[in-house]
């Protein structure tokens, strides 16, 4: 087989796959997670990229929840708030609850009422991925701790293993809890675990995560922690930052300026 034919067959194969994916996307009942593979570098190099986030709480407006609203709309996260069946990807937590192991005697009035956005930390050493018996949750080549909703058996071992309370389980069909459906991310079924995915579906399109874009105070910086020239690394070098429960050795990729 000559080189041209091989090339043609390869392209035709990809086109057929892409067509299949698009057709599946048209029918919301059979929506698959669409990933445009052409955006990836030819061979992803493990450890070359490690996506990370720095949240500057000084610029995080009090009482504002635009980040979670944008994220929860983008990803079709159902609203069962206030019940035990709650599902959430990014939400605000009181400082002393997000950082229960940091010193907190005699803290200032501002710290007393400070609320910080909390989300999956995309740990470099994720205990959830270690606990998962089916590799349904796994660390990707770019450091994102991802979920395969089609493989998850719903044992909730990852939820017990996560020391940050970042994971939610679909205790019921999520669709009745979604007011307006978003076309950018598939809905899930009952019986599987979900959490923040660092907007991997937006990253492949060259877009920033939804929460970063939605923040009116520009408080969230997103970037490659392995690139010393990135904005996030420059901020980390300049500012005093914190990670949640660093004593557990999980190496969170989400940093905070308090």
């Amino acid at each position, binding site marked *: 087989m000559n080189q041209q034919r091989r090339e043609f067959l390869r392209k035709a194969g990809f086109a057929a796959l892409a067509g299949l994916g698009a057709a599946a996307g048209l029918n919301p009942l059979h929506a698959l997670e669409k990933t445009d593979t052409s955006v990836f570098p030819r061979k992803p190099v493990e450890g070359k990229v490690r996506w990370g986030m720095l949240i500057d709480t000084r610029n995080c407006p009090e009482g504002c929840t635009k980040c979670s609203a944008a994220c929860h709309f983008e990803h079709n996260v159902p609203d069962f708030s206030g019940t035990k069946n709650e599902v959430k990807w990014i939400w605000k937590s009181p400082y002393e609850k997000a950082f229960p192991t940091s010193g907190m005697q005699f803290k200032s009035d501002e710290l007393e009422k400070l609320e910080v956005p909390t989300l999956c930390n995309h740990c470099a050493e994720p*205990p959830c991925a270690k606990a998962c*018996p*089916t590799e349904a949750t796994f660390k990707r080549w770019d450091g994102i701790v991802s979920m395969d909703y089609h493989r998850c058996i719903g044992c909730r071992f990852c939820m017990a293993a996560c*020391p*940050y309370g970042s994971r939610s389980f*679909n*205790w019921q069909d999520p669709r009745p809890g979604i007011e307006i459906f978003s076309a950018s991310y598939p809905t899930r079924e009952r019986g599987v675990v979900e959490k923040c995915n660092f907007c991997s579906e937006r990253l492949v399109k060259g877009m920033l995560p939804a929460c970063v874009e939605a923040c009116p105070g520009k408080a969230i910086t997103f970037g490659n922690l392995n690139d010393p020239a990135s904005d996030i690394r420059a901020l980390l070098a300049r500012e005093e930052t914190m990670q949640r429960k660093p004593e557990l050795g999980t190496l969170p990729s989400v940093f905070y300026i308090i």
Partner: protein
Amino acid sequence: MLEKALKGNRAYWIWMVLLVMVIVSGLSAWGRQLEFGLGVTGMGRDISWGLYIAQFTFLVGVAASAVMVVLPYYLHNQKAFGKTVIVGEFLAVSAALMCMLFILADMGKPQRVLNVLLHPSPHSMVFWDVIVLNGYLLLNLVTGWAVLGAERKGVLPPAWTKALIYLSIPWAFSIHTVTAFLYAGMPGRHLWLTAVLAPRFLASAFAAGTALLILISFILKKSAGYDIGFEARKKLTVLAAYAGVANFFLLGAEFFTAFYSNVPAHEHSLQHLYFGLHGHAAFVPWMWTSLVVGIGSVIVLLVPLFRSRPRLLVAACIGLIASIWVDKGIGLVIGGFLPTPFEEIVGYVPTITELQVTFGIWAIGLLVLTALLKVVVDVKNG
């Protein structure tokens, strides 16, 4: 041999039909759970394991405790256990079966259970638990059945059974060790993150499982005229007593480290369970009842004057089983989620549906155990 389980007196059939009714009720509840999702249970985002995983953890212990009769009989030639060994092995079979059913009931996507084998993940303790539990069930079923079959024919059991029986002894320790490792390797869950969890699991298993075996021996004696013998029961009582002592010693060691070191993370869960935390004390009466009843039962089992009275012995066995069930199920599994990673205390109350499923699985286990023991009694009574 199984045909022996199909013949029985009136009481036998009433009991079996009763169990079938509980199983049907459990199945219908499980159907509701499959239809709506696990939201029909009391579990939620913060307490994400409940009654099902609690039963699983307790029953792995019951399964493992078969070694308390297998080891003395086969390794130390304790002839007194001749009529008990098979009862222990079949108790292990039914307990291991219930364990697997409880895991299945707890899964959000039970139809995907084979993913565990399709994508084997040795870094996950669940993978190992599936292997050891299934292996243990098979070992006990195959060896128990083969030895009993040989006895019925009046011949010596085949040589290969010996090898499998010897293998089942370390295997029994492995099932409860791996089950403890499910919990003991998780950062941020401080009630579980302790090196004595596996030893404590083994001690509580050998105490509760052996006590259960003593109770079963009384039931068999009364209902079927099958007596394992005074000597065997006496030895079992002593084994349960010392396992109970080891269990409470290890619990005491947990208290010392947590409260003497005064490290908040180590302290909070125990404080919540036994004294209440931030004004939440729902578990406190349960835990203290468990502690008092458990220690009282161990004392009865230890003192010859008390344990020689059958009524007191039965009461102590029930007390020890109940105490460990509360300590391991309610305290350890559910209490282990509290305080949450956000230092909050939330509530958990099992729902009727959850209870129905739980009773249904227990009924399946009891049905299998009853049928197996019926075969044992008929073969042994010849």
